[in-house]
């Protein structure tokens, strides 16, 4: 009896003591929190997010605002952002994510219009700021914007005295001339992994053949003859003409990068980030990389890709959140993103203050390409469309369904999403 009583007394004492300690430390940290703002920031764990990470110390030094950073793998980013915004978990004051996901989250995002000065609005390139505008509100600022261009091996072209292709037919001819199966070298590559990124390549081919996802009257044109012809061409590059490696249905931009760096690709449609990595001493390709606009069939057009920073509208630090977003998209940060991440600046001042960036052969091509870019935010429910198209694309390139079946199915599913939308 005495033993049990004394045990209970000990337990009670320990419990109360622990409770007091926890309460005390929480109140101390609460007091400390009042004195200094700490921003909770979610960033993607990719090359672009890495550049932002490297800019954080300068932000903290200049503003006195501390940053509590969470890196999230790109595959988990959608879950993280959706759960955060839907539940109002308040684990983020600033989020870095693909700009084309912003419409899905738009009702949870802080409009930045009131914080942006006229000077800022003038400084951003219209296409860049336009892509961030949803329902006439600027919901984010672009920290990395990009599109696909054609990378090619200048040494291989010179050997065979080939010209840079401007059309699909020329590209096919060049790819056939440069494909050496015995040496494991392919003329080009098609990417169709069942994930979001390769959808950009499909959209490029559709645009270049004069097609689109929806027309001016908002009718779905995913399964138009132009779109089906475009997907058929992608399929033929792999299976009919055999100028692209056969594993297309599981390739994405990183495979393009690895194969190009390994000397296995003569030409490679890919995002601009590839240039900095491929044109380094490690790959042996330094100085042997040429860049041009993607070859076309009927019109010059390319899908706009990119990442932006946005803030939940329930953040307790809206001004500080904007300060972070503004800092990471200012003239200097854009120069860092250009130099370290090979992403095109979206500010005119960056190009003016850093002439070496404007003169960089990558950005000469990128500025041209981006002038033909089509933002994905123009499509309703783009996030859902990405998933629908990625499944259709990978199924087609695996040979399980024809291009027509794939795009008919995609169009039908997209129509269902538009007519019966789910609200997050």
């Amino acid at each position, binding site marked *: 009896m005495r033993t*049990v009583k004394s*045990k*209970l007394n000990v*337990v009670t004492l320990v419990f109360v003591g622990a409770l007091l300690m926890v309460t005390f430390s929480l109140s101390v940290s609460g007091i400390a929190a009042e004195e200094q703002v700490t921003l909770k920031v979610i960033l993607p764990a990719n090359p672009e997010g890495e550049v932002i990470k490297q800019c954080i110390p300068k932000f903290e030094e200049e503003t006195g605002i501390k940053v509590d950073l969470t890196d999230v*793998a790109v*595959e988990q980013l*959608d*879950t993280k952002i*959706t*759960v955060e915004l*839907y539940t109002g978990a308040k684990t983020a004051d600033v989020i870095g994510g693909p700009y084309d996901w912003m419409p*899905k989250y738009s009702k949870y995002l802080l409009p930045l219009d009131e914080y942006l000065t006229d000077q800022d609005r003038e400084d951003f390139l219209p296409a860049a700021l336009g892509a961030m505008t949803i329902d006439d509100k600027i919901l984010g600022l672009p920290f990395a914007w990009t599109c696909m261009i054609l990378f090619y091996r200048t040494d291989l072209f010179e050997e065979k005295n080939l010209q840079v292709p401007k059309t699909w037919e020329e590209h096919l001819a060049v790819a056939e001339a440069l494909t050496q199966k015995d040496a*494991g070298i392919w003329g080009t590559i098609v990417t*169709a*992994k*069942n*994930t979001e990124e390769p959808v950009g390549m499909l959209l490029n081919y559709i645009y270049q053949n004069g097609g689109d996802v929806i027309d001016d009257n908002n009718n779905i044109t995913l399964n138009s003859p132009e779109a089906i012809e475009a997907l058929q061409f992608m399929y033929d590059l792999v299976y009919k003409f055999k100028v692209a*490696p*056969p*594993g*297309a*249905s*599981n*390739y994405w931009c990183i*495979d393009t990068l*690895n*194969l190009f760096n*390994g000397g*296995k690709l003569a030409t490679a449609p890919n995002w601009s980030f590839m240039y900095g990595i491929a044109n380094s001493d490690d790959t042996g390709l330094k100085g042997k990389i040429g860049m041009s606009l993607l070859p076309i069939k009927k019109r010059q057009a390319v899908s706009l890709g990119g990442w932006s920073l946005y803030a939940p509208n329930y953040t307790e630090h809206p001004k500080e959140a904007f300060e972070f977003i503004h800092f990471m998209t200012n003239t200097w940060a854009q120069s860092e993103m250009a130099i370290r991440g090979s992403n095109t600046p979206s500010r005119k001042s960056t190009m003016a203050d850093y002439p070496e960036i404007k003169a960089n052969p990558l950005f000469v091509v990128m500025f041209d390409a981006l002038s033909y870019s089509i933002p994905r935010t123009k499509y309703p429910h783009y*996030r*859902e469309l990405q*998933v629908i198209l*990625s*499944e*259709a694309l*990978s*199924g*087609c*390139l*695996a040979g*399980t*369904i024809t291009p027509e079946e794939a795009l008919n199915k995609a169009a039908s599913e997209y129509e269902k*999403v538009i007519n019966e939308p*789910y*609200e*997050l």
Partner: protein
Amino acid sequence: MEITSINFQKTQSLGRKNARLAFLLALPAIILIALVVAYPIGFSVVKSFTTREGYSLKNYKSILSDNSFSFTLLNTIKFTLIIVIIELVIGLIVALCLQNIKIRNSFRALFTIPLLVSPVVSSYAWMWLLNDQYGLISHILKFMKITPPLWLANPNWAFISIVIVDMWIATPFVIIVFQSALASLPKSPYESAEIDGASSIQKFRYLTLPFLKPAFLVILTIRTMDVFRIYDSIVVLTGGGPGNATMSLSLLAFRTGITFGNLKGGSAMSLLMTIPLFIATIICIRAIFKDEI
């Protein structure tokens, strides 16, 4: 006698008080777990019955009538049956082989390596290994003049690759459980069987297998639950593709709930997933405890 009776009563009383103390000590953890587990489950259940018009079974009807759900359910059942059966067989064979090896402890350490690595990290490693152009496995096969398959780009091979990767990650667990069970087998029945002239196969069939039944059932229960919820390796290796060849229910529920923003449908799908798991688990647990009784 009286003293014994008094001592017994005192012991019982002390036992009850210790039980109360133990309960009190465990109570904070029980409350925390109940909140962390019960609240999300409750939220999910309520969401699954919520529609724009109120509460109904509409979300469930919508999912059950969707072709992609029935296809994915079949796919997931195929994954579960194939992976669990092969794991049980391979795990038992390896555990039996290791019984008679002197350096089995070194092998045991080697086999636990996949268990120490996160499944996502393992999946990324396999993604590089299985790449048809620059993967190490494809290189080795080409060196042996064998044309490597499109491990992740062909629908059938992608299915097989997911099976291989998941087995690589989890078979060590099966081996360890069987090894522990084998190490605790009673010796006397085997000695009697030896005296009676039983062959190795007879001893295995009539002694080892029945003794290993509880271990079988435990592994079957745990691995069935694990594989039915397969997600990490599929997301990294194939994204559910090519097309939907390797789609699993977990990935479909994720896409429905998170990507499409249909949290109600995603919740309904997640709860539908638990029904076959619940039934399978109850059957296995009853079989385990039936033997103990």
